[in-house]
């Protein structure tokens, strides 16, 4: 049950490349926190610093109150599962699982009991006597998970563990990872570039970009209340529509003006935002699936022309043109290219960001 804290952690490679920039974050004990971001955002560097594989240029790492910054991995009681299953091919599965316990010098009976318990938990007991060679990747990852469990590590770090697993086997492995969390109460860090994995598995998501953590919140909050435009775009399939516009006030009402169309904003927000921003340039955001689409003209609906339609099976992702603006919608309706449609932006889903991309409303 360990809290992992990073204090002013900065790491610079070769005196030139700043991989992580002044990270200050506490990953709470017993929870699965995902570190989500595109490649090159610094998530792997951050993970290696927490694991003890890398000493940060500046800053400290704490496990609860203990400063572990200078401790190597074996002294931190962390367990790791990597993208490529790390199993010792010269030992049997049994030996692989037993290895961490042999190091701890437990008795033969104790080891046997533990190995069998963990193997049964992960559903790999029938493979104990086999060597890992030739076993499928998902089985090997279960062995890696088993080794982590058996160590009874306080901290479990997973670095994109499902990337090299066959899609059909991923579902079960995900299940197992959650079961391990429930069973051991370890603090789990899950590094990934795949939003679906983060949204599915995590209690909390830390979104990273260019070495900084942009937001650390629950999946619902990161999805429904993104702190900035990058997060709004990165999450969602496709991500949020982001359009530049200006904020205007007229007759006690506030509007967002987007190249010719005017969207009225609920009265309550006016004073809130106008006080906080310096210019009236804003970025208007709404998710494609939240836009209401109608095939007939209705009051308060805006006219748009369908330009591109991507049928994705269950839903259609349509790119619409409103004058010069391009907006994507996601709908169960069957739309055709060139069709006239009418759309509405429900007030409760509208987001506004300032011109630097930070959230100001929504």
């Amino acid at each position, binding site marked *: 049950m360990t809290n992992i804290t990073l204090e002013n952690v900065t790491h610079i490679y070769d005196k030139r490349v700043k991989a992580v920039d002044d990270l200050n974050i506490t990953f709470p004990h017993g929870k699965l926190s995902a570190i989500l971001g595109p490649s090159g955002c610094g998530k792997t560097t951050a993970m290696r610093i927490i694991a003890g594989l890398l000493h940060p240029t500046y800053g400290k790492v704490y496990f609860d109150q203990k400063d572990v910054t200078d401790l190597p991995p074996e002294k931190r009681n962390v367990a790791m599962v990597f993208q490529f299953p790390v199993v010792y091919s010269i030992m049997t599965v049994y030996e692989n699982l037993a290895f961490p316990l042999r190091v701890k010098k437990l008795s033969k009976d104790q080891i046997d009991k533990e190995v069998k318990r963990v193997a049964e938990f992960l559903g790999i007991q029938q493979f104990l006597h086999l060597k890992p060679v030739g076993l499928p990747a998902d089985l090997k990852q279960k062995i890696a998970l088993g080794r982590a469990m058996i160590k009874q590590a306080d901290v479990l770090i997973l670095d994109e563990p499902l990337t090299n697993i066959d899609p059909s086997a991923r579902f079960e492995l*995900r299940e197992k990872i959650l079961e391990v969390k429930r069973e051991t109460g370890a603090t789990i860090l899950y590094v990934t570039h795949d939003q679906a994995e983060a949204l599915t598995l995590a209690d909390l998501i830390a979104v990273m970009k260019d070495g900084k953590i942009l937001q650390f919140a629950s999946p619902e909050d990161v999805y429904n209340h993104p702190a900035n435009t990058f997060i709004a775009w990165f999450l969602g399939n*496709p991500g949020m529509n982001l359009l530049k516009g200006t904020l205007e006030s007229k007759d006690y009402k506030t509007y967002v003006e987007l190249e010719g169309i005017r969207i009225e904003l609920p009265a309550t927000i006016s004073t809130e935002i106008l006080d906080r921003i310096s210019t009236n340039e804003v970025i208007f955001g709404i998710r494609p699936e939240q836009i209401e689409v109608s095939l007939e003209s209705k009051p308060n609906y805006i006219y748009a022309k369908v330009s591109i339609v991507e049928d994705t099976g269950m839903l259609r992702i349509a790119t619409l043109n409103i004058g010069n603006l391009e907006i994507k919608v996601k709908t169960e309706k069957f739309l055709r290219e060139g069709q006239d449609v009418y759309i509405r932006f429900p007030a409760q889903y509208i987001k506004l960001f300032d011109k630097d991309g930070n959230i100001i409303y929504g």
Partner: protein
Amino acid sequence: MAKLRVEKVSKKFGPKKVLEDISFEVEEGSFTTLLGPPSAGKTTLLRIIAGVEHPDKGRIFLDDEDITDLPPKDRNVALVYQTFALYPHMKVYDNIASPLKARKLPPDEIRKKIEEISEFLNIHHLLDRYPRELSGGEKQRVAIARAMVKEARIYLFDEPLTNLDYKLREAARTELKRMSKALKATILYATPDPIDALALSDKVHILFEGKLLQSGAPREVHDLPNNLNVARVFSYPTINLIDADLEMKNGKVTLKTPFVSIDLPTYCTSTLAEGRYLLAIRPHDLHIVFEEDRSLTNVFKARLLLTYIIGSETIAHVEANGVRLTLHLPYIYRVGEVRDVKVFIDANRILLFDANTMERVYP
């Protein structure tokens, strides 16, 4: 742009039949997809059309001209490889210029064409770089630029989106669609992803284990697959398959599965016999029922095991009487632990396949 005709093409690699008697046409200006799982033969077929592989049997025609024995350089086709195949020792500019230099065009004409295409694909700022300095998305656009700049009779794409991050793939798919409309070209696109076929193409050909199983408009083939392999290939997430027994009693036709009984319209008595069938239902035709509605039939109890949240959609795995089913929900459904749910199966969307021949028998 040209029209392509593939006639009875077969190819073996050693004892393995990679392509068997493949015949189809690609109309001028159309965007046609070759959909099939990995090692179905798609890449081999594209390579044969490009001329870097020779078929054992069969002919290839471009605009009714037999090109089967022509070397690649005389065919005027373009092929975009899955791995992009950019020449690492040449700058981006020279990579794109390669087909134009082959045609011995004067340098200023080459420069003009490259300026145009690089503006169109937003890679103008990369012309002076080397391929190793580019990101995945940039490499792909350069590969496409090199193909497009030569104004080929047909463009062949071999899984161009597979090597991209999922976020890049989203954007790239829209761009590909936009490009194909602007370009007026004949495109043949190979992919294992059914969504590519649905989203991008006018026509789809299903390739499975070297054989052409079905062809048609994507939506039609998707909704009415002729056989089980087509249904399996053309669905994401994987289609649900359930053993079902057909019974006829008192003029009513009923399908009995381990967890629910479904009534079929009575005209089926003339077309179907009693017995064991394979029932297929797509994940998005199964719905979770939240409110009690006595009038709703075809509802059954199931155990919700796990959900997988993709953006604004959810894939849910349930188990009903020992049968594992996958649901695709158009909203976010987050559950903490295993629980019971009620699932509705849309009987209008059921497909029945003969358990032996695997051919579709209903609808």
